[in-house]
Structure formats: C-alpha cells, structure tokens
C-alpha cells in the first residue's frame, strides 16, 4: 500500500495519469518517486509533488491524503486495485477505468468516470459537471460499472450513457442523461431542467422535483422501480417515454408525490 501526501498547495493543474495501482504494481517507492507528471507546462516527477510512503501491507491500494483538486487523471485506465482519496480530487478521475475501485472522501472535478467500462467509483462528497460523460464531441459514453455520489452532481451527468449505473443521493444539474442509450441513473432529490434530452433508451429515476420535456409522453403510473439488483425505489412514479424527437424508448420515472403539477398528464393515460 502506498500513501501520497502533497508536499505543498498546488496552484496550477497537474496531469498525473500515472497514479494507478496498475502503474504502481511491482514498483519500489524509489521507482514510484521517479514517475513523470506535468505541473502546468513543466515536466516533474511524482516525488517533487508528493511525499510517498509505503506501508507494510501487500495490498495494491493507493491512498492520497490532502487537498488535490488540481490533480487530474488519477486512476485513468486502471484495471484493478483500489485508490482511496481523503480530500478533494480534480478532473478526469477514473477516466476509462476498466476495473477496481476508487473511493473519494471529498469532492471530485468534472469527467469523473468518463468513458469507464467497469469498476466502482464511490464519492462521499459532490461530483462535478460531466460526471460519467465522455469528453466533448465524443459520443462513446460510460459502458458499465457503478458510480455512487453522496452529495450533488453538476450538469451533463451521464451523457451518452451506454450502460452502467449512476446513483446520486443529492440533486442533479441540467441535461442529466443527455443522449443516453442504456443504463440507469437514479437521483434521490431534485433535478434541473432537460433531463433525458435526446435519450433513446435506458432509465432515469428522479425522487424529487423535475421538469419534463415536451418531447416525452406519459406511459403509466408505477408503484416502484428497480434501479439495479440492490436498489428498488418505492414510488409511486409517473413513467414518461421518450425522447420522441429521436423516436426514443427511454423511461423517466418521476416521483408522483413530489411533482403534483404532473397530475394533468393523468387524463392522457
């Protein structure tokens, strides 16, 4: 087990895709110290920025202690092992990850779990914009895995989702599940406008308030909905089908109790 502690406060963005259990495996502390990272436009080594300590335990996990919201691409492409971050972490955390687990006891920046295929990301704070969404322009979103967020998430979460589960305990921003084609998103509290825009399939469950786009149509009222094997949410829920502008068959489950203004839809049932 390796522990990283920042030696000082970081002022400029740091690109550190090398902080993954795969990269650290079978490396001594001295070797890990020499791994290259960039700080702004300068090439430095990991040892220049972090105090690196090795614990006796053999497990392939990495612990980062401290404020790291400028540090980007931690856990990029990881396939196994565990990263525990006690503090905030920057953008692209767990991008393209294909296995393992990342636990963040703090907030994350944008594009957390972007294009991930497998694995688990647990965020015990807030997650930034574009969580689980591909980088700009790309239409290949998250394919599998699980992201759980205890706090709120920003805008454009779960864009182009092609599989996997996103669970949010707090609120969500605009364009939740934009263009999604599979998978499920569960937001326990409120959701900003345009949830599910251009979705073609998949499931969005909102426990709080939301706005429904005019391109969605009412389908039914359901007493409960299953998000994944562990989570079944008690309703009742209005079920909306859409996005019809893309001939979509996606479903938005909107809480009946928290959205009384949707009552007028009932006459179309």
């Amino acid at each position, binding site marked *: 087990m390796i522990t990283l502690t920042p030696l000082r406060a970081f002022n400029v963005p740091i690109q550190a895709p090398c902080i993954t259990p795969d990269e650290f495996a079978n490396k001594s502390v001295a070797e890990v110290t020499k791994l290259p990272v960039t700080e702004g436009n300068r090439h430095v080594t990991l040892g220049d920025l972090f105090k690196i300590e090795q614990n006796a335990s053999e497990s392939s996990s990495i612990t980062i202690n401290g404020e790291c919201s400028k540090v980007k691409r931690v856990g990029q492409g990881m396939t196994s092992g565990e990263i525990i971050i006690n503090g905030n972490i920057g953008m692209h955390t767990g991008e393209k990850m294909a296995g393992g687990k990342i636990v963040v006891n703090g907030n994350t920046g944008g594009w957390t779990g972007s294009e991930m295929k497998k694995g688990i990301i647990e965020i015990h704070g807030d997650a930034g914009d574009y969580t689980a969404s*591909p*980088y*700009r*322009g*790309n*239409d290949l979103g998250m394919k599998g895995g699980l992201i759980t967020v205890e706090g709120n998430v920003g805008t454009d979460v779960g864009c182009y989702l092609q599989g996997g589960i996103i669970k949010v305990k707090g609120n969500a921003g605009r364009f939740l599940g934009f263009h999604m084609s599979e998978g499920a998103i569960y937001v326990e509290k409120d959701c900003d406008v345009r949830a599910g825009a251009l979705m073609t399939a998949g499931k969005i469950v909102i426990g709080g308030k939301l706005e429904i786009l005019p391109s969605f149509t009412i389908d039914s009222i359901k007493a409960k909905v299953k998000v994944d094997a562990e989570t079944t949410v008690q309703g009742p829920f209005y079920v909306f089908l859409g996005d019809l502008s*893309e001939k979509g068959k996606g479903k938005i489950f909107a809480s009946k109790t928290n959205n009384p203004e949707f009552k007028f839809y009932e006459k179309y049932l």
Partner: protein
Amino acid sequence: MSEILIKNGFIVDPINNINCEKKDIMIKGGKIVEKVNETKAQIIDASGKLVMAGGVDIHSHIAGAEVNMGRMIRPEDHYKDPVKKTTITRAGTGYSIPSTFVTGYRYSEMGYTSVFNGSIAALKAKHLHEELNDIPLLDKGTYVLMGDWWFVLENLAKGDLNECARLVAWLMQSTKGYGIKVVNPGGLESWGFGRNVHSLDDQVPNFCITPREIIRGLIKVNKLLNLPHTIHLHTNNLGIPGNYQTSLETMQAVEDLSTDAKPVLHITHIQFASFKGENWSKFKSGAEEIAKYMNAHTHMTLDMGQVTFSDTTTMTADGPFEFSLYELGGHNKWVNSDVETESSGGIIPFHYKKNSPVNALQWSIGLEIALLIKDPWKIFMTTDHPNGGPFYDYPKVLAWLYSKKAREATLKKCHKSARKKSLLPSIDRELTLYELAIMTRAGTAKALGLTNKGHLGVGADADVAIFDINPETLDITKKFRTARKAFSKAVYTLKDGIIVVKDGQVVNSQVPGRTIWVDPQTKDPCRIDEDMKRKFRDYWTIEFENYPVTDNYIKVSDRLVRKASV
C-alpha cells in the same frame, strides 16, 4: 540550388517505360537533368531501394470550408491523435481531418508531393487558398464546383456554350482553380428546395435543364477551354443502392464526346457509385458491370474511393446524400448547408466497421473495381480522404491491391454476408510495383495533364520518393506487411530537389509547395454587365467586386496558361 545524385536505385517510371531498372537519377535546380557534377553533388545511396516519382493524389479533401467545418464539429477526432511540435515541424492534430501542417507532413512522409483538393464552392475559394498556403511540402490544386453554379445552368439551358465557356474561364481565374468539379449535377440546386434529382433526365427546378445536359455541356466547355484535366464528376444517386446503373448511364451518355480515344470524364470515388440491389438489405456489388464497361471503353478515368474501416468523417458537397446518410447512420451530429447559388454541403462522422454487412461489402467493391479493370491507367488509388478513410491508410489500400494474402486476411474478419457476396476470393490478380506506380503517380499525373510530374524523365520536377523495398529480394505479395510499412514511411522524399523527408521523418518543413491553377485565355472576356452585378447583389451574400480571389491570396503561385478556342 544544390545538385543531388540518387545512385543505384530500382527505378519504376511507367511514363518512360522503366520497370525496376537500376539507374541513377540526377537533380539540379529542382528539376531532373541528364548530368550533374559527381564530385560536388550530394549522393543518396539508393541501392536495394525502390525509386519512384513523388505521389500525385487526384482527389483528397485537404482544405476548404467543409474540411474546416468537419474539424470544428469533431473535437474527439483531434484529441485521439495529437501531434507534438519538434524543432523542425509544428504541432497539430491528426486523424480523419488533420490540421493543415500535419496534412503536409504526413503526405510527405508517404512519398506524396502533389495533392488535388476534391472540391470547393467558388464562394469559399478564399478560405481554401488560405488553408492551402498553410499546407507545406506539397504542390496543390483544387477543383471548383460548377455543376450547379447559376450562371452555368442559365447559359447551358440557353444552349450558349461559348458564353458558358467564357464564364467558366472567368470563374477559374477568379477562384484560382485547376479543374471543373461537378457534384450530383442538378441535385444540389434541387436540394435548395428540399428535393433531389434521381435520374439523368430529371428536370432541375426553375432551370429547364437535366443532369445529362449539364454533364455534356460542361464536357464541351472543358474542351473549348482546352483545360488540362477532364471534368471531375461525382455522379447522381451517389451512395444509394442500385446506383451502378446511373453510373453506367452517365458513362454511356458521354461516349460520343471523346475523340482519339482520349478521356473526357473522370468519375471520382467510383466505389460509392457502384452499388447494386434495390435496397440496403439486398445490397450487392456492381463492380463487375462497371469494370466490364471500363474494359471496353477508353473515354473515362476513375478513382477508387476505397473504404478502409476507420472512424472517419464524411464530407461532400452532395447535401441530399449526406441527409440520407444521417437518416441511415443513427442520428449522429451533422452539418448540412446550402451554399447560396452554387452548391450545398454536408458533414457526418462515420465509422466503417468490418462487422457491418454494408461497410464490409463497400470495402470489397472498391478493390473489386480496381482489380477487375485491366488497365491501371484508367483507375487510380484514393480513399476520397476523408470519406472512405484518412489518407494515411493508403499503404493499407496498396497492400490489398498487391497481395491476395492481405485481402484474405482482412476478408476473414468481415461480416459473413459480405464475405459471401464479395467477388474478391475469385480474383487472383496482384498488382505489380509498375502498376501501383501508375495508380498512384504516373496515371494520376497523366489524367491531370501535368507533364512534368509523375515521372522521372529529364525535365520533370525533382519530386522523388524512395522506399525501402528491394524488388529483387522482397516478395511483396507474401511479405505484404513489410512492404506496407515501407510505403507508409518513405526513406527519402524530395520536393523540388530538396530532401524533405528522411527515414520517414520530416527533416525540412520550409518548402511551401506551389498552388497550381489554370488560367484559360479566351479570345473575348465573358460578359460582365450590370445585370450580372445585380444578380450578385440580389442572390449572393457578397458583392461581385469581393468575389474573386486576388493574387495576394496565394503564397506560391504556379499559373498554367491554356489557350482556349473561344
């Protein structure tokens, strides 16, 4: 300028009938000469290597408004393939729509020295030339979209060929273009009204003219102006199943215009125009019919438009075609535009996949046509960059052409329905280096009417490519991967007698390359009167005075004067 002597290489020069002979090439003042001072000259030892003229690409979308729009809508295409700066080259991005500098570097690394841009609307010509200026190491030219330009349509409908020719001459001078490009004639004008033309005899709205009349008219205009290249045609019904019949009808419609067996028409990216079957589920290859016709006639040249299985970006002036592709391809992001009174345009990212029955068969069709046409002077190698695949895939296409083993290796991975329908297993032909040289440089240079390119005879431009292929020891048909690698990174590329690439790396990026354009000299100028200017005011967004590309837009101008017969 320094003298260079290339010693002991195996020369392949089809224009001068040289096939893998050991000879020396002498270069002085940017030209190939008979003799140099051997003691002073820089000597390049090419023993055991293949020496060819620099490649000439007849159709590749490397610059212009739609190329740039494609760059804008595809950030994901760029961050997949960043190119770092070196002490010699600039930074940029690659993949399906590379930045201007990277376009120049990567073409040069493959031994190409001249590239002709697929199309540009006259209105966007200024933008085009600014981009061409930024593409180093290559000589460039462009075809200008004229098939739906209002003045052309008006004069052809009136039957006034001479005035039409004078207008075309004026347009060539004003846009600094190299040839006449016709895209889906009549269809682009119809697209302005949400319609398309579906056969050679459909009427174009408001103009009382048919695609057949436009094609025939412009061929006659091309002859009157004595332009170096034939007209460059993207056929009607492109990309629609069953369109091989439209292609054949087009070929038949212009048979009588050819004299002395000279080509009068170049049909570009023929692969997209050789589809058989009533719909996509009954999609079949029309390669046999096209090849049979081509083998019996001499009035045409073609280029392949080969599909190479990559995540690419389709872009064409054929707006209605891109619309149907958008409907077909699952509603990806896209651009469709109407270029005022001249053309239309569309751009859609597209991923050609081996496991798609249609895409895999498209791959097969391109190769079938190239292999079934017996005379390599009639068909040239392109991918219609970036429509079938980016130009860096050319070595792959070459490998499929010269090695049956390479074709079989790819066919094995293709969708089984495509495997069943493909004619490739029945074709044993493997192209020789001589034939490859024709399809990539000699034939294209000849079709473009470039007398000092595509060969290594005395007086030719000193554009030379040297590849690490020894024809005596390397059997390219068996070791296709070794040869493919050699074709993708030239050992040396010389542009105008200057070494620009060595061992597959750009070593000199300061050779700007020329912009070649044709200046047809008519006896009388075209009628530019108040009526024409009024039309510009009424129908174009820019004034007549601001329309032409002035000389200062072109960094290195290479003007080709042609005497017209009107």
